[in-house]
């Protein structure tokens, strides 16, 4: 299910990523469109969210329907760090990731050590509880208005643009390396046949928690970045909508492939922001396209475009 790169051949598999990367780097200098840069920053954030979701829900196979919870935890952590401790954004990023990761370890320990089906529901419940708390405990979280005045890394949009791009590349690389490592192979093995893995001596509960932790760390990390970039955090970051969007992106791009997230995230983000001709119909078009993909292209777009590289 992984990416096979044939050495020496200059085909689609090599050309498209390189071309896209070069394009992304050059865009701020070619096009003077702040909106486009903003959308690409958003897309990069969702790439990380999507790829991190994929590691747990796609590779490992434990569908996590509460991914937004960790995204939001990262965001609110950034907000709290700024409000109470005035910690710089650079420190805030890993702390946000850390907080999300620790929470996921707690939840994971509680739910991944049991029968599989519970994990899905526990994650939804967790996200919902956090969302409710964010709205109810307005004194601390600012309620539905959230926290404001969070400083950003730089007020220069192009600076933020390259920062987001860098984070995206680093995260994708890191996640890819993980999937190619022994850890990744264990996740796949557990996905294929949990009982056989257990029989082979793998502590499946432990590795499930690890996958979940990795997934949540990246979500929290980019959640913090999101907070610093927008300058605000609201309970929307914790909503089911975010999780569903991420789910759609991962799936459309191609689940169990890290690079598929790039395609899915960019596609859906651009579609959501640019398809304003029939704004009323945007969501139903999105839904129908997703349905179509689920039925006829369950492997996602990446397996179609890069057919030679993926089985």
């Amino acid at each position: 299910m992984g990416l096979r790169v044939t050495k020496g051949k200059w085909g689609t598999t090599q050309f498209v990523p390189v071309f896209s990367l070069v394009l992304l780097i050059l865009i701020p200098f070619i096009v003077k469109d702040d909106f486009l840069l903003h959308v690409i920053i958003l897309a990069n954030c969702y790439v990380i969210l999507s790829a991190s979701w994929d590691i747990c829900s796609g590779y490992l196979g434990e569908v996590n329907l509460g991914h937004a919870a960790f995204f939001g935890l990262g965001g609110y952590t950034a907000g709290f760090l700024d409000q109470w401790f005035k910690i710089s954004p650079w420190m805030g990023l890993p702390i946000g990731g850390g907080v999300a990761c620790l929470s996921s370890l707690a939840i994971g320990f509680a739910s991944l050590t049991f029968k599989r089906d519970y994990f899905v529901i526990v994650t939804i419940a967790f996200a919902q509880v956090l969302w409710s708390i964010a709205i109810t405990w307005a004194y601390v979280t600012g309620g539905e208005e959230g926290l404001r005045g969070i400083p950003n890394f730089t007020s220069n949009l192009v600076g933020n643009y390259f920062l987001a791009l860098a984070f995206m590349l680093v995260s994708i690389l890191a996640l890819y390396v993980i999937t190619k490592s022994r850890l990744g192979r264990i996740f796949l093995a557990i996905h294929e046949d949990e009982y056989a893995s257990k029989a082979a001596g793998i502590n499946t509960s432990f590795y499930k928690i690890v996958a979940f932790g990795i997934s949540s760390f990246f979500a929290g990390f980019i959640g913090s970045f999101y907070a610093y970039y927008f300058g605000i955090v609201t309970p929307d970051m914790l909503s089911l909508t975010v999780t569903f969007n991420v789910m759609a992106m991962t799936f459309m791009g191609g689940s169990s492939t890290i690079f598929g997230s790039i395609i899915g995230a960019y596609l859906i983000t651009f579609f959501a922001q640019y398809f304003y001709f029939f704004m009323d119909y945007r969501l139903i078009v999105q839904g129908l396209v997703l349905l179509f993909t689920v039925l006829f292209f369950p492997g996602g777009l990446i397996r179609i475009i890069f057919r030679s590289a993926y089985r």
Partner: protein
Amino acid sequence: MQKILITIVCLILIVGSGSLASVSAQSNELKIGVIIPLSGPAAVIGHRMSCGFKLAAEQLNAKGGVLGKQIKLIEWDDMTEPERGVTGAKKLINTDKVWGLIGIFRSGVALAVAEVAAAEKTIYMDTNAASPDITALVKKDYNKYKYIFRNASMATNFQQTAVPFLTDITKAKNYFFIAENSKFSHDLFKATKETYDGLGIKCIGEAYVDQAASEFTGELSRIRYSKPDVVIASISTVAGIAFQKQYYDANMRIPHINLPSVVCAKEVLNELGNQGNYFTFVPFCWDVPITDKTVPFYEIFIKKFGYFPEGYSDVRGYDGLMILADGIKRAGTLEVEKVIKELEKTDFKGVAGRYVFDETHQSKWGEGYLRNVIVQWINGKAYVIWPKVFANATYIKDPR
């Protein structure tokens, strides 16, 4: 090879669609960006706001536009999410090159967009979002946030709408407050308590319900047991409809006054049928001659859009665009700084009342400025019961 070509074409299309939009700009148009919820739970409200803006633009354009330019409204669906609001603001300002922003329902979105507007030095007229924090920004840093104006009313004004009901109509000595769980409601309650404490009316209970709540048996029991003189209800989300139904069915026999919510619109009350009987609410505008523009507005609006204006989202939207146009006309130029100076001097007679901005760019509230009426709904008809100058009936308690 085909795949590469397809990819390149797609990329160019995506990038190009963004840049193309700005190329087609015409110089004899005044573009205003409208940020409203067009999908999601608040779509009904966004639709009303849109109607208000459209009517105002139409009327202004018919009279030759503003400074000779025809107004062009560009709508953006913010889905009540701050992220989309910010993205929309950026798109409207950078790609569509709008001159100003108007609208926004949810305060969270408005606060986020305010930051963008301030950074881009673009005027934003808030016609709906009610958080005090929005105009507090103007006070906090005038030079940065002077671009923000609000012709909508604040949470602190919202609760003053009910005061005459308690003091004059029912002569209540205490009240029970119930609202949906949101920061807005908590701000509202704080302001409510302050006002009534000053008037010697006690609060004997408060309750907050989930925004999508549908079960109120618990709350209704609590209310019944505390035996208040009046219930002040401010459940502004869809939960308000269920609450009214259950309140009516439970035969509470306690007068209740409803602060602005989705229930406070004729279509919804008609839908409720019997269960809307004796419902008392505080619309910010009604087809009574609040100003000489009010009644004609209602006639035109009903004819054009087919529904009776809810009185806030639509009316304030209409007035907001009119105020903006008026400010530009008086400044005689589109230079933002000069328009801001003129807007600050606004003394405009709109449909809902008289608009004058205070030093935080908030439209003033009170006698002679903006107020509300109190309306009671009985058997499918609306009776204005306050203020006396417009009243055509008196308050009738639920006789069951």
